[in-house]
């Protein structure tokens, strides 16, 4: 195991993870609002925000899918040391990490069951830019409307149609984080 994969964890895990969890919670509760997430550094090409999300949300009991560009030996080692999450194919994933263009078809991820809608995948999608402009978002947690630079529209509309089943999304870019739960309506701006 390479040495640099052993660093980059939270400096003060209980406190840092609590702050990151709060940010992750707010991002999903207020779709479209952009939060800042720092304190973690995973090997390339993972953004600091995505690294902090992984440290906060994943553990040895949450199977994780890595899209091909993210599936590097260094990142696998980093995850093994800091998180312990087993790396799995999409159909068994509770979390997934990758660039939008690098992800396999969304239909391959579990959307939960009628008895357990929570048994679905939460995707962490790395973007080149993340701003409060673009697609129009409405629904729970949004007073009137919000905007977010989503990479696409149709797949998120299709996901909304599955409610109460479906996938939940985080978008990350550098230290920025935004959320898009399955309950949000997405339209072209």
């Amino acid at each position: 195991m390479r040495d640099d994969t052993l660093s980059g964890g939270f400096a003060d895990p209980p406190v840092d993870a609590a702050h990151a969890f709060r940010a992750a919670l707010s991002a999903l509760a207020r779709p479209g609002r952009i939060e800042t997430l720092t304190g973690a550094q995973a090997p390339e090409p993972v953004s600091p925000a995505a690294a902090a999300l992984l440290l906060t949300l994943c553990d040895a009991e949450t199977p994780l899918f890595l899209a091909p560009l993210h599936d590097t030996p260094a990142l696998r080692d980093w995850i093994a040391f800091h998180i312990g999450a087993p790396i799995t194919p999409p159909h068994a994933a509770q979390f997934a990490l990758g660039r939008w263009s690098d992800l396999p078809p969304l239909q391959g991820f579990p959307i939960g069951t009628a008895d357990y809608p929570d048994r679905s995948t939460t995707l962490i999608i790395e973007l080149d830019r993340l701003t409060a402009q673009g697609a129009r978002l409405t629904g729970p947690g949004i007073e009137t409307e919000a905007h977010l630079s989503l990479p696409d529209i149709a797949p998120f509309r299709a996901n909304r149609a599955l409610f109460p089943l479906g996938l939940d999304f985080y978008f990350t870019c550098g230290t920025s984080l935004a959320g898009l739960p399955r309950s949000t309506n997405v339209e072209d701006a």
Partner: protein
Amino acid sequence: MTAQNDQGEARKRWMSLLAKSPPARLAALTRDMTDWPAFEWLRPPEVGGVMVRGRTGGTGAPFNLGEMTVTRCALRLATGEVGHGYVQGRDKAHAERAALIDAMMQTKRADALRRAVLDPLATQMQADKASRAAKAAATKVDFFTMVRGED
């Protein structure tokens, strides 16, 4: 390759020994050590649970028996060696000592540490085990035949 495997086996043995060692014993054996090396934390000591599994019928399919407490940490010496501590229980200082010894066993202090700490620790733990086994042996039943029913 073989040398690396031997090294891996040896490390597995000393890490297992440290994990099972009573905290007070390890503390006593290292009390006089004043030259602990400088290090930085890679993972500060954290207490967690490990789910212990058994097998149905002792040899069959696995099942979850219950958890045990484990404390772990990881550190890097100023000289670069990485030490991992995994110990039973909730004693963070114990985990730190285990990780430091794991790291130092990768340096040229290994032989001295083995003589001063690991070997005596193994001997003491072996003696405890032997003492329990000797008491168990004293409770082993010797049957003797009173009557044998053959005509």
